[in-house]
């Protein structure tokens, strides 16, 4: 699909929402909703996306939208999808409808993980999208299990005791793939074509699908608002955020950087890693690079590259 054609389809997310200037997730929403051919019902966990897009009596959604609690977007949408299937069986609905649950990384990797795991295991036909901005941003930038090692957050403050978050992020996309669902993929708002295609596949499968989409938070990452797309692109180009999909158990790389950038180049773009370059952190930076390289090698093997 060429972009001018994509723009011909009606948009289902409007301006007038109150996300920060230069926020990444509205672009993630735009690309995913443009890929849906049917009417959609969206459920959204508490977090920046929900808070900024549905401030009563305003809503930026042009489709049915349910605000769920922080932890249960997947459970709510499981119920909605089950009710839909029942109504369809009774002949009370004949339309095809797509169901989407959006959750932030906090609402997905952490507090919503069991609801998500259950929804995937029960086999509901819904697309769960984690818009991943690598931290609890709506409550003022706390660490999550998706936050990269070394990042400064309010709960892992960089200072004399701590060089930012001590742990590596967990690999949630692999955990979701391990559920044996028909489709799980990792994508970035910066690579729209890749994300669009993955969203189409997610809507098409007959069962649960999971998308983990890197979506810049320029406030929490401390980047300039105009650099939102560049920074997400940088994460892909340095292999911190590889683009891949797992379709019916088969792993496939969907993008391979020509010459991967050093991770430190990507980190230097962001204020949340600033402290790492103000004193000697060679050892930490080297171990982060080593971890990224090892993860990348493992991914290449899984993808048969």
């Amino acid at each position, binding site marked *: 699909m060429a*972009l*001018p*054609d*994509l*723009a*011909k389809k009606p*948009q289902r*997310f*409007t*301006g*007038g*929402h*109150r*996300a*920060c*200037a*230069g*926020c*990444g*997730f*509205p*672009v993630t929403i*735009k*690309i995913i909703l443009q890929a849906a051919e049917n009417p959609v019902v969206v459920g959204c966990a508490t977090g920046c996306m929900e808070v900024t*897009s*549905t401030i*009563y*009596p*305003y*809503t*930026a*959604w*042009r*489709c049915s939208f349910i605000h769920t609690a922080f932890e249960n977007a997947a459970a709510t949408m499981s119920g909605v999808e089950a009710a839909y299937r029942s109504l369809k069986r009774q002949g009370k609905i004949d339309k095809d409808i797509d169901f989407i649950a959006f959750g932030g990384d906090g609402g997905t990797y952490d507090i919503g993980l069991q609801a998500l795991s259950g929804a995937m295991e029960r086999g509901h036909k819904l697309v769960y999208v984690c818009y991943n901005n690598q931290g609890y941003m709506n409550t003022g930038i706390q660490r999550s299990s998706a936050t990269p090692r070394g990042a400064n957050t309010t709960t892992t403050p960089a200072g004399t005791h701590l060089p930012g978050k001590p742990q590596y992020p967990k690999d949630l996309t692999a955990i979701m793939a391990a559920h044996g669902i028909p489709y799980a993929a990792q994508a970035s708002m910066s690579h*729209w074509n890749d994300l669009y295609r993955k969203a189409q596949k997610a809507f098409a499968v007959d069962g649960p699908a999971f998308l983990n989409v890197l979506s810049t938070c320029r406030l929490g990452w401390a980047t*300039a*608002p*105009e*650099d*939102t*797309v*560049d920074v997400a692109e940088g994460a892909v180009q340095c292999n911190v955020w590889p683009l891949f999909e797992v379709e019916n158990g088969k792993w496939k790389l969907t993008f391979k950087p020509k010459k991967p950038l050093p991770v430190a180049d990507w980190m230097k773009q962001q204020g949340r890693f600033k402290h790492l370059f103000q004193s000697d952190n060679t050892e930490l930076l080297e171990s982060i690079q080593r971890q990224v390289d090892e993860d990348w090698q493992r991914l290449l093997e899984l993808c048969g590259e």
Partner: protein
Amino acid sequence: MTLSSQTKNLLKVHQQVNVNIEPNAGWRDLPIGGVIPQAGTATQFATGDWRTIRPVWSKEKCINCHRCWLYCPDMSWISENGQIQGVDLTYCKGCGICANVCPAKVHAIEMHPEDNFKDDEVVKEG
């Protein structure tokens, strides 16, 4: 019944966004559970007044790639029949993403300080 100015304001906002409430309504008449019965009411909330810099588009230079349309978080670029028509500043927060993603060789969008447009009536929007 006399309404407080706060309630009056709330009613005005509801009417503006087509949430159906009687003119004399009180809080009991609000939709239960904070339901918003209309879709897309945020279009009534102009975020353009957040802006300190403004995108200026050159129709001549534009190659119609639509990258600005895609990457604008505030849905500000207008496309009709696959052709970019320009930018609607009603919601534009002046993030500068559009100017940044417009291909470097094309450079059809430049950001300018809002101050330069002081006398321009478009500034009154938002």
